[in-house]
């Protein structure tokens, strides 16, 4: 198996809304500098898993480890105790929750399935917002432009511009984020996620709505930022040539359940996956 350190570990992750089990007992590991793919038909629970990792939803059962430390854990409580349809009930006892911004502070950044840029702000400001959490000036310092605040502001601006150069958005840094073409907005969202200096990057369908040429560029871009920023990446994607081309390990979800995981070649040959995607021949 992979000898690199496990940076992100999901154990028995289950998310149940009322009667529907959106994510059923997902076990997933992401190793240092590994690009892991998470695929599955629409409604398989991929984005819900993302939302559990990033603290937007509280998982119904199971735990999430970041850099070897359990940060989120939960077990069915109250009404859910008997309504719980998933497995491993009682295996988890602690109730640890985390707000999305705390998860981001741990170095887990994310992008969104449908683009969520800050409409009222320019491209540069979008990226600089993500750096806000790392600056140390107090609100008074920032308002009255203390020396430390001014230096931090300058450093933030330079780093943001450097990031924008990487996604060649530097020249329209003062345009409104909504004025960018669709592909560019995707790149901006990735640049903004990088601005939080993450160690783990969660990409939610980065190549959605892109033509083959654009998704190729994106594929190479993801590879480049993985090396340059020493990241480990977990990616949800439908474009098979992107997933097969770049992911070292792939997990396949269907109706919330985990039906297969392995290298791209194993996944392509795996009958369960083919059946889930193309429907079996009666």
């Amino acid at each position, binding site marked *: 198996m992979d000898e690199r350190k496990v940076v992100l570990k999901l154990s028995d992750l289950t998310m149940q*809304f009322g009667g529907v089990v959106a994510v059923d007992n997902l076990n997933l590991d992401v190793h240092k500098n590994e690009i892991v793919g998470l695929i599955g038909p629409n409604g398989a629970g991929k*984005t819900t898993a993302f*939302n559990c990792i990033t603290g*937007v939803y509280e998982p119904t059962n199971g735990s999430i480890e970041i850099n070897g430390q359990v940060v989120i854990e939960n077990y069915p409580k109250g009404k859910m105790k008997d309504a719980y349809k998933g497995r491993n009930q009682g295996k988890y006892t602690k109730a640890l929750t985390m707000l999305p911004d705390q998860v981001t502070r741990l170095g887990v950044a994310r992008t*969104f399935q449908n683009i969520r840029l800050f409409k009222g702000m320019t491209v540069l400001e979008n990226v600089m917002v993500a750096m806000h959490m790392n600056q140390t000036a107090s609100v008074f310092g920032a308002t009255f432009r203390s020396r430390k605040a001014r230096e931090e502001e300058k450093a933030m601006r330079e780093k943001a511009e450097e990031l924008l150069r990487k996604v060649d958005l530097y020249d329209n840094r003062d345009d409104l984020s909504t004025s960018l073409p669709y592909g560019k907005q995707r790149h901006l969202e990735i640049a903004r996620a990088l601005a939080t200096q993450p160690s783990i990057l969660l990409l939610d369908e980065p190549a959605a709505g892109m033509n083959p040429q654009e998704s190729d560029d994106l594929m190479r871009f993801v590879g480049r930022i993985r090396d340059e920023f020493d990241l480990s990446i977990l990616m949800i994607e439908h474009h098979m040539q992107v997933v097969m081309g770049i992911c070292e390990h792939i997990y396949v979800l269907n109706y919330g359940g985990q039906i297969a995981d392995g290298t791209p070649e194993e996944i392509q040959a795996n009958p369960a996956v083919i059946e889930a995607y193309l429907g079996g021949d009666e």
Partner: protein
Amino acid sequence: MVYGILRLINFAHGDVFMWSGLIMVYLVTVLPMWLSAIIVVIFAVVLGTTIEKVAYRPLRSAPRMSIMISAIGVSYLLQNFALYITGGLTKTYPSISWLQKTVTIGTATTKMVTLITPVLTIVLVVLLVMLIKYTKIGMAMRAVSRDFETSSLMGIDINRVITVTFIIGCGLASIGSILYFSNYTGINPMSGAMPGLKAFVAAVFGGIGSIPGAVVGAFVIGICENLIKGAGWTTFSDAFTFVLLIIILMVKPTGLFGEKNLDKV
């Protein structure tokens, strides 16, 4: 109802309530009582729909704040216009004989209207809930209140649904005004403000989008307020309504019966 569908706090609702009372005062000098009552209801409906057409429809896509301001503007206009027309003096509401007969139950003496109002309210609410649940227009209203864009994609004529909502909303408001003013017979241009605000507080308290919730909310607030007054804390009776509201919002952010909507990421 209006809030459930348009997500707009209709500040002008209290003033439509007041204007129906005012028009009743003028009409009754000329027409018999039952005829003026009907005309008042029609008047309220017409006023409500014109407000919707003039003040809210053009702003359908505008930011939420400006629709709110337009509602405040309409309320400002109605109040000041009433002040300008009537000279601001309190008018006494015509006494509807069978409504204002004093009746004594045990030791408490009160007017007949205080007995009739709860009964009539419940009847009207039942009718309304049935309309919402079982008629086509009711389903359309529920669809529009759930999601604006998709229901228009499904071929529901948004404007017609909203106009019908205003017709029902203002019609009920005018009926309410007849009951309210025969119990408290003093009307002046400002008397619409507090009932309007309390009605909204009751709707929020009962749970947005649920009509029985609003009615229960209103009953609870009305009863608690008088209990407070009875207990001698009179200075804080109005402030108390807001304390009650804030406590409920802390415990259950979408009110007693409101359904919890999880915003999708």
